Every structure is written in C-alpha cells, then in structure tokens.
C-alpha cells in the first residue's frame, strides 16, 4: 500500500475533491494521480492539457503569454509589437526576468526594456486594426531601425478578422527587414502551451535556417528551452565555455535573431524545457538532421550528468577530458555548500506547482539538500512531460487544442545532413544516451507522491492543510497566499528576484536561498505573546 507522508493517498484525493460539484470532481479526479512506477517503468495516466474549469481559480495564463511572453520575449533585437488593446503588452513588459547582454551583439540592439503596442481602440474593433498595425510597424521601423519586427495577436484580433500575416508580408516587402506575425490569441488552446507551439512554428518558418554561415568552433550545440531567468543561461554559457563547447544559439535566453537564423548549422540540440521547445527540436531534426537530447542544468549532479551526455555524444577524448576537469573543479565546492545547509534542510517537505518543466527539474536541487518532494504538478504540461514521451502515440488532441497548427516538415533537399548514423545512435542508446527521449517527471518521483495537474486554489489550500509542507514552490499569484499561512513560498518562475539557479554556481545560490527561507526566524514570531496565552493572568506591577 502506497502512503503519502503517512496518509492514505485515497483519502487525500477524496479530500481534495469532496467540495466540488460532481461533474467537476469527475474531471479533476483524472488530473490528480498517485504516483506508482511499475517495474517496466510505466506510470499511471494523468489527464492534462485540457480546458481550465471556469471559476475554479487556476494558476494558468494564456496563449499570448506562452508565445510573446515566454518564447519570443527574451530575444533582444526583435521589436515585438503586441497587436491589441494595451493590457497584454503592458503586463508582459519586463515582468519575466529574461536577462540579456546587448554588448554581445555587434549592433548592440536591445528592445527588451520597451513595450510596443498598437493600443487598439474601439475604432479598430469596429473597422479593423490592419491599417493601424501597418502604420505601427512603419513607425517602429522609422523610430528604431530594427532588423526584425514580430507581431503578436491578442484576443480581439482573431475575432475581428485582422490578417496580421498579410500585413507582415507586405511590410516585410516594403521595409526589407524580416517582419513576421503570430496568431497567438489568448483564447487559443487551453493555456500558455498553445502559445509555445505557435511561437515554435513561427520561428521555424520565418527565421531558422535563413543564414547558412557556419561559425568557427568545435562541438557545436544549441540550447533549447532556456530563457535566462535570473542569469541561468549566463551560468550555463560559462560552463560550456570552460568545457570547450561552442554554443550556436539559445532558444531564447540571451539571444539574438541572428543566432536563430543559423541554429541549423549546429550538431546537437540540447533541450532544457521540453514543453516549450520540443517542437523546434523535432522540426530541426526532420528538416536538417540535428538530433536532440534532453538535458537538465538544474542541480549540480544533473549538470554533471548532462555535460557527460554531451561529451558522450561527441565522443572526443579532448572534450571528455575537459568536461571531467570542469566537473572535478566545480563539484566539490557545490557539495560543500550543500553539506552546510543540510542540517537545516534535511527531511523537510516541499511541494512544487510550476509551469511546464521546473516542477520536475527543481526536485534535483531539493534532493541535493535532503528535502522531500511530496507533491508536484504543472500548470500546462502535457502527458509526455508527466509520463514520458513513450505515451506520445496515445495522446489524443482534444477539441480545444485541435486548431493549433502542426507544421508538416520534410528534409531540406540541400541542407539535410544527419549528424549521426543509425548504427552509432543505437550504440549510444545502448550506453544510455537516448535521443529524442524524455522520461517525464513522474518516473523520477517517489512512489506514492501526489501529482496534480493544473492545481486549483482550493486544492492548494487543502494540500497545505493536510500536509503543512515546509516549503511551497509556485509563482507570484500563489506566493502571498501560502505565506499568510506561515509557510515560505519560493517562486520558481521569477526566483524571487534572485538567481541564477542553473549550473554549479546556481546550485549554491539555490541552497543558500532555500536555507534562508526555511530557517528564517520570522515564521516563529507570528503569534504575539498575548495571543499565545490569551487568559489574563498577569497582575499590574503595583498590585
């Protein structure tokens, strides 16, 4: 019988669902599972990537956020124009901490501190917004001279029938720079996830492969699905540099559009966030012959393991030696830092409900501190992120996501070049280096842990009440709710303005931040002396 921190998982699930109307309870029931890893490695099926229940208070955002906010936002030299009323552009203005280094581009362009919007008014809703959009693109060109402009559609754009793609084609022709559009209206799909897919399709169609310049350097890699929150990508770049790896492009932390344009000249794609970028990896493999592997630079051990995978792929003694040297030089310091916090973190209980990848990755860091993950879940991941890509053939696209385009990609007649032959791929697979594979979060979680997809506020409250975790990980909307309970919440989207947390130095930062949070004196001071002993027994001094 599986137990969840001493509690019967069946009872726990019942308590999460008991207050719901029956129809809702039946639906949520399928999105909450107790982890059970079978001997063949399979895990229970979890329902995910389905529509949000109205009124239940989900953590989710929309398609526009996934497209503009997440995938395209971090590229510094594209002017991103939000076509819509002012809000969408305003809220996605500098609120994700994608750091960038404009000095790394020869032209020094950096439009990330700016918000560009067509600020649609009633007139455009009634008569259409194409004219204003066209003019806005012209004004962006006149004022900023960018080398690329991207346009992002918001909810009303699809409804009123503005053809942003036609406008972009015209303006591309007219201005002679790359101008491309995204139909990422907020209502598409069921979450940010649809936006990732639309962003992937757009960047693949309009940018990747538009520059065949082969850059100097050996062991050429792309880092996919790493957005440089709090400088994560900088730390990973530092490590790559030390190992002698050549980073061609990052999708899309600290990135420039030029890097995307010749990303196809690399030899290996590394996937950090599987959910947001696996489409680009798949399409690049089909069109250009680049294989991809899943890596994880969150956690010191995970970082070492990922570096070894890369060395294994290139199979070059010089690289292997440098990778081992880097690991040998970096790991002891990290392990010492972990040992220092462990007396205060060991055995503490944590829950993680984050986006579409970090709820998995960060479990590595917690286990390095001896902390136990009782429960985890994603806002918008799909079954393959939970259960592993082996379930991909069984996933049915439902009515809410059916309109998200699947691009048909064929090998490029001139540029398709398989980087590795099947025989060698088979050998590597036999050694444990799996291509195009991700095993998902559940296979790496302990038996009996509770997996909750698209957790609601109500379920969050119940989990807090039942388990009283020592730390909760989620985002800004959850942070102060949880902390009012007297339980610290670590934001794993913004990192609470700290970081980096990736790589070796990031691990140390994370240990220190978590130690500070779970050990803070303030959680012990919530009750005033008179609240602890409400019966009035004291006497006045003069009595």
């Amino acid at each position: 019988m599986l137990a969840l921190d001493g509690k019967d998982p069946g009872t726990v699930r019942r308590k999460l669902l008991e207050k719901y109307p029956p129809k809702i309870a039946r639906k949520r029931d399928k999105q909450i599972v107790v982890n059970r890893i079978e001997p063949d490695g399979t895990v229970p099926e979890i329902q995910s990537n389905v529509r949000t229940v109205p009124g239940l208070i989900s953590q989710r955002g929309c398609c526009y956020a996934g497209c503009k906010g997440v995938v395209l936002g971090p590229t510094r030299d594209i002017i991103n124009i939000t076509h819509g009323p002012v809000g969408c552009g305003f809220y996605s203005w500098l609120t994700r901490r994608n750091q960038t280094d404009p000095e790394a581009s020869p032209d020094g362009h950096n439009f990330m501190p700016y918000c560009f919007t067509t600020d649609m008014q009633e007139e455009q809703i009634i008569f259409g917004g194409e004219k204003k959009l066209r003019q806005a693109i012209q004004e962006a060109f006149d004022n900023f001279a960018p080398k690329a402009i991207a346009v992002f559609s918001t909810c009303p754009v699809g409804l009123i029938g503005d053809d942003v793609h036609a406008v972009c084609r015209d303006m591309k022709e007219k201005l002679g720079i790359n101008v491309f559009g995204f139909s990422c209206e907020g209502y598409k799909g069921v979450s940010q996830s649809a936006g990732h897919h639309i962003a992937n399709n757009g960047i693949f169609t309009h940018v990747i492969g538009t520059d065949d310049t082969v850059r100097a350097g050996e062991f050429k890699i792309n880092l996919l699905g790493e957005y440089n929150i709090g400088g994560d990508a900088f730390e990973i770049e530092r490590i790559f540099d030390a190992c002698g790896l050549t980073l061609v492009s990052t999708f899309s932390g600290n990135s420039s559009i030029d890097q995307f344009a010749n990303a196809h000249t690399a030899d290996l794609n590394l996937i950090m966030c599987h959910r947001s970028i696996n489409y680009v990896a798949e399409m690049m493999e089909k069109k250009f012959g680049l294989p991809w592997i899943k890596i994880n630079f969150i956690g010191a051990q995970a970082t070492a393991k990922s570096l070894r995978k890369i060395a294994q792929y290139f199979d070059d003694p010089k690289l292997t030696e440098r990778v081992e040297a880097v690991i040998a030089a970096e790991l002891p310091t990290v392990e010492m830092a972990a040992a220092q916090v462990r007396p205060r973190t060991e055995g503490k209980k944590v829950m993680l409900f984050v986006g579409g990848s970090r709820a998995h990755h960060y479990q590595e860091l917690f286990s390095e501190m001896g902390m136990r993950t009782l429960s985890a879940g994603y806002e918008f991941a799909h079954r393959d992120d939970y259960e592993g890509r082996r379930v991909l053939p069984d996933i049915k696209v439902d009515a809410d996501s059916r309109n998200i385009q699947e691009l048909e990609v064929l090998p490029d007649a001139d540029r398709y070049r398989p980087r590795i032959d099947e025989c060698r791929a088979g050998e590597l697979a036999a050694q444990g280096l799996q291509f195009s594979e991700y095993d998902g979060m559940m296979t790496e979680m302990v038996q009996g842990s509770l997996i909750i997809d698209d957790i609601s506020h109500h379920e969050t409250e119940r989990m807090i009440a039942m388990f009283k975790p020592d730390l909760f990980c989620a985002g800004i909307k959850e942070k102060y709710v949880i902390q009012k309970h007297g339980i610290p919440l670590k934001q794993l989207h913004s990192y609470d303005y700290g970081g980096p947390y990736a790589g070796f130095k990031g691990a140390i930062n994370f240990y220190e931040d978590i130690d500070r949070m779970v050990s803070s004196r303030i959680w012990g001071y919530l009750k005033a002396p008179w609240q602890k002993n409400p019966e009035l027994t004291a006497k006045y001094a003069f009595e």
Partner: protein
Amino acid sequence: MLLRHTHPEIKPRSALTVNPAKTCQPIGAMYAALGIHGCLPHSHGSQGCYAYHRSALTRHYKEPVMAATSAFTEGASVFGGQANLLQAIDNIFTVYEPEVIAVHTTCLSETIGDDIPQIVSKARADGRIPEGKYVFHANTPSYVGSHVTGFANMTKAMVDYFAESNGRKNTTINVIPGYVEPADMTEVRRLASEMGIATIVFPDTANVLNSAMTGKYKMFPEGGVTIAQLKQSGSSRGTIALGTLASGSAGLAMDAKCKVPCQTLNLPIGLHDTDLFVDALHHMAGVNVPESIDLERGQLIDAITDWHQYLYGKRVGLVGDPDQLLSLSRFLTALDMRPVYIATGTPAGKKYEQSLRDTLAGIPDDVQVKVPGDMFLFHQWIKNEPVDLLIGNTYVKYIARDEDIPYVRFGFPILDRMGHSYFPSVGYRGALRLLEKILDALLDRKERDCSDIAFELVL
C-alpha cells in the same frame, strides 16, 4: 543605457504606443471589486487576463489577490461565453463561498458582445445564486480608456446595483476615494472620523490589500465595504467623489438614482486639494473642523517653509494617472516647483487637459502636456531638456537611471519598493510623506554630487 533606442528627435506617431503610461480596464475593476467585503472579482474572458491582472496587483501589493475567470476557449470565443460564466458562478459559490461575485469583462467578451445581465439573470433563474448572495457586473472593454476607466465602471456598478434610498436621510456621508491605495482609503476615513463624521467609503481596499500575517490565510479578509453599507449609501446625506476620472461617474449615478447630492473634488493630494476635501466635509456634514486637523495642516505648512529653498524652481517630470497628476501638479506648484512635463496614458479628455494646463499656467518653462501620451515621448522630452526630479511608477526608474535624475516612486504600479500600501499620500499627512520623499531624493542627490568641501552636516 537601458533605453538605448530612445532618441531625442521626436517623430510623429499615430499608431505605435511605446512604453504605455496606462494599462487596461479590467485590472482597475478587479482592484475596485476587492474593495467590497466578501467579494470575489470575476474576469469574464480568457484566463490570461485574470492571470496578468492578479499578478500585477500582487507585485504591487505583495499580498494575495483573488479572482476567478470564465476561462474562455476558442469555442466559447466564437459561440459566446454564457456556459462558461454559468459554470463559473456555480463553482465559485460551491467551492469558495463569497458573499458576492463582481463580474467584469475583457476585450474578448466585449468584442463578441456577451450580455452579462442576461447571463446573470439566467443564473438567478436557474438557482445558481444562493439566497442572500449577489452577482453584479461592470462592462470593462480593454479597448476603451484605461485601468482608471475600469475602476470607475466597477465603482459606478456598485451604485447601480446596490445603493438604495430608504426615503429619509441618514447622517452618513459617502466618500468615493478614487483609484488610490489602501492607506489612502484609511486616511480619508480617518480625516472624516476626526471630524466626527460617519462615512461609507467605497470601494475600500484597506485591510484587504495590506492585511496582517497571522498564520491563517483568509480568502476574504476583514476589510472592504459591506453590501449592507453599499445599500445604505443611497440614504446618506451626501457624497464626496474624489477624482473626477475614477469617481465622478459613481457620484453622479448616486445622485441620479438616490437623490444623494454629490460633490466631485480633486483627489486630496497636497495642501489645496486636502483643504477642499476637509472644507467639503465641514459644509456637507455641518460640523466644525477640529483643532487636530488644524494642527496637521499647520505642520505641513511649517515643513514647507522649513525646506522651501531646496524645492524652489525645481523642474519636475510627472507620469501617471490623471486624477493623481492633477492634484500632484497643484501640490508641486504650491511648493514653488515646476511640473514641466506631464504625460498620462489615460484619454482623460479636453476638459481635463485644460484644468491641467490652467494649473501650470504660471510656470515660466516650456511646459509639455500629453493626454494621452506614453513614456517614450515623455523620455524624449527629457532628452531634449532635462528635469531635476521625476515622479512616476516603477517603469520610470529606467528613465531615471539612464538620465541620472532623482526619482520618487508614486502611482501604479510600484513593483520594487514598499510603503505605498501602508502610508498614505492623501491628506495633510500624505502630503508630508510626499514632501519627505521629494526632499530625500533631491538632497541625496545634492550630497552625492557635491564636492567634499561643499559637503555639509546641517541642511
């Protein structure tokens, strides 16, 4: 340079907004709805809006911000969101048990033309709204006005739905505090109570968005105007609506619906506008102004005379929301400072722009006012001729850093400092706080820049 692409040459723009000095309606409606006790704001649109609005308010207040959403899918966006809203109402009352649900709309549901009153009456007819509970709404299309408009619409809806006249006049006075901070709402209530006046303040986010940590999370905190009070507001002796843009329409609606006379004033920021507020209370309630308030006023004037030499003639750039900008400009001119550049993203109208220009009429500088304008243009003005001080929300810090100009955070949103939710900037005390912040910024800069020889102990 952070804003390295901002060039001094001002080219005409008619279509592209860069670095907006406003955001969209629903967040203002959500904020207003949080000022009702036991209320859950509900966003009738796709869920991205509510996630953004909750996040923005949370970042500003560092407090839980609760709301629900209809979570439109593509199907609902084409065929209408009735089923989503009905299901949401069911789920919200079953699971979260608020007293009242305040529905606002987004550009999505407004563009498709969902009829909220019809959906709400269907919900009532279907028995989805429990006895003694309420669902009310405001239409808040994001493509009209700004967050201030959304606040005004939701505040007016409170009157439209709840205010009722009992046929006689109570002694209470309604105060519609405007789109201000929880601490400001407390301060206007305190000033009135100092005068012995019972008030109904709505909306009132005090102790909702600056609540205490007790170790026990309360989904519906102690604060907020109650529905009972909102109903009684129709029988008050009078209404004072603070801030024309944010509160004017609710004040007028109260007068029209319940014959409660309304006086619309500027936000009580600074000396003059606080004077007018206190004087209005004095006349409306027929009570004397107590000495305690005279003391506060006198302390403010005293401090201004004490520090006048550092304020005199300083050029200031202001960006923010219209009601605040107007009162703040009046305050700054009273300090003999010169607000030379003023931009708001809110389309506040010609009449508003004229009052602003009237306020600035005596300033010898070349004054620039843009209603509606954006922060890109504002920054270009500064590039052309700098100012001594910037006042605005957190986004202004990018300009302040690039141009190395002293800067005071004021307005919405403030994402990177504390204080705004706890300490008022309205009333005489609020004016003292603003004065302190302005002087801190100016004097810190003076002492940073001066030579060792000129460095002084006493200022």
